[in-house]
């Protein structure tokens, strides 16, 4: 067994919280630059230029890229040969988020009671996922997810006999309904298969992958291409003011499912799709 002190997890989560919120991912930055270069619409171009400038200011001055520093999602892939020592792992993760968010002056966007909205002004707890994998390493991802786009996400339990076009229409319709509200150009994470909850988790994890990562599943890869094309025909554009830069990319993850069903989850994300990962 490899012993890992939870202090290392806390430090890693702190560092990743700071990085994810202030340094825009290289792949997202690349996609924005590409959209800026390729588009000719003047207003869209001006907005994309400001978004690039925003990323520069955030990185240089250690400011949050977006004031919505999210309900942070922390994802851990833990090698089965790892033994955590030195304290409680969950506490270490929560403390790491608190350390990072305090040091970065990030927003206290967490409310403890979802119904009464009592106990506000909190930085934590994050939403944490853990998965046991082979090996003796721990991979940690911190993804601050803004709620403007989270609110526009949808899930649908399709019939198993549904056509691929039906799935495509649902994904494109989800973006159409988001319209100008959720900070386009969007990044779209899609989860197909599994159960209700599994599809939702896959759609979230799809956002951690580099934008436009080609799906390993052939049908999903075809769907990915078609969805991307059709979303960019919606004429939503940056700030929703029109143009063909409506979507920076689509990622799809799939899982085996039941003969009676076909869950499809769409996690809408903004042009400031954020995450940072590290292996310890």
């Amino acid at each position: 067994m490899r012993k890992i002190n939870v202090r290392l997890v806390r430090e890693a989560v702190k560092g990743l919280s700071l990085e994810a919120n202030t340094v825009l991912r290289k792949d997202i930055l690349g996609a924005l630059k590409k959209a800026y270069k390729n588009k000719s619409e003047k207003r869209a171009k001006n907005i994309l230029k400001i978004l690039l400038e925003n990323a520069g200011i955030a990185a240089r001055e250690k400011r949050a890229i977006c004031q919505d520093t999210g309900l942070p999602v922390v994802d851990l892939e833990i090698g089965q040969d790892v033994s955590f020592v030195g304290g409680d792992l969950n506490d270490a993760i929560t403390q790491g988020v608190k350390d990072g968010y305090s040091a970065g002056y990030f927003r206290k966007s967490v409310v403890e009671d979802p119904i009464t909205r009592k106990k506000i002004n909190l930085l934590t707890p994050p939403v944490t996922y853990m998965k046991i994998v082979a090996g003796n390493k721990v991979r940690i991802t911190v993804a601050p997810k803004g709620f403007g786009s989270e609110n526009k996400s949808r899930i649908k339990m399709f019939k198993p006999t549904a056509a691929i076009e039906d799935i495509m229409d649902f994904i494109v319709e989800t973006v159409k309904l988001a319209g100008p509200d959720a900070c386009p150009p969007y990044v779209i994470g899609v989860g197909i298969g599994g159960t209700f909850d599994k599809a939702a988790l896959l759609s979230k994890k799809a956002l951690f992958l580099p934008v436009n990562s080609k799906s390993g599943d052939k049908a999903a890869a075809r769907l990915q291409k078609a969805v991307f094309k059709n979303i960019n025909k919606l004429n939503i554009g940056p700030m929703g003011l029109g143009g063909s830069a409506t979507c920076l990319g689509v990622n799809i993850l799939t899982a085996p499912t039941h003969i009676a069903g076909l869950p499809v989850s769409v996690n809408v994300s903004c042009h400031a799709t954020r995450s940072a990962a590290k292996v310890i």
Partner: protein
Amino acid sequence: MISIKGQIKKASLKNLKAGQEVIYTGTILTARDQAHKKIAGVLASGGKAPVNLKDAVIYYCGPTPYGIKNTVGSAGPTTSSRMDDYTEPVLKAGAAALIGKGSRDGKISKLLRKYGAVYFVTIAGAGAYLAKKIKKVKVAAYKELGAEAVYEFQVEDFPLVVAIDSRGNDLYSGRG
């Protein structure tokens, strides 16, 4: 590009048309979900809002703090449609302009026409960029709400686009 400086008066916004770009230098008051709920509640029970809403410019924003006192780190707009149901009392109390992101319910363009106010959008997701346009910050009301408190911002060259003008023309209607 139209430049507006100093105290906004409703009358001076009359000529703005949906789609026009504006840069604004002056005072802005932030208010988002919980502040709207509170203000609407106070006004409904015949009370007074904790800030003067006459000719006010309301910004749907919950900023992040920053390491330097009386500044903000990141301060972009939040989704305006969540404020749709609380917008009439704010307009009735005299607000001249609203700033946010995204489309509004159809009733908002009617309300803006009725009260002669304007709905602007600003660059969503450009919180760091916009924070640099905010030169002075102070809490104006509801300090206990933290990020959702009402802050008074002094802004310089704050970029805006007229999304719904005072005649009710909506830049977003029929789009998407």
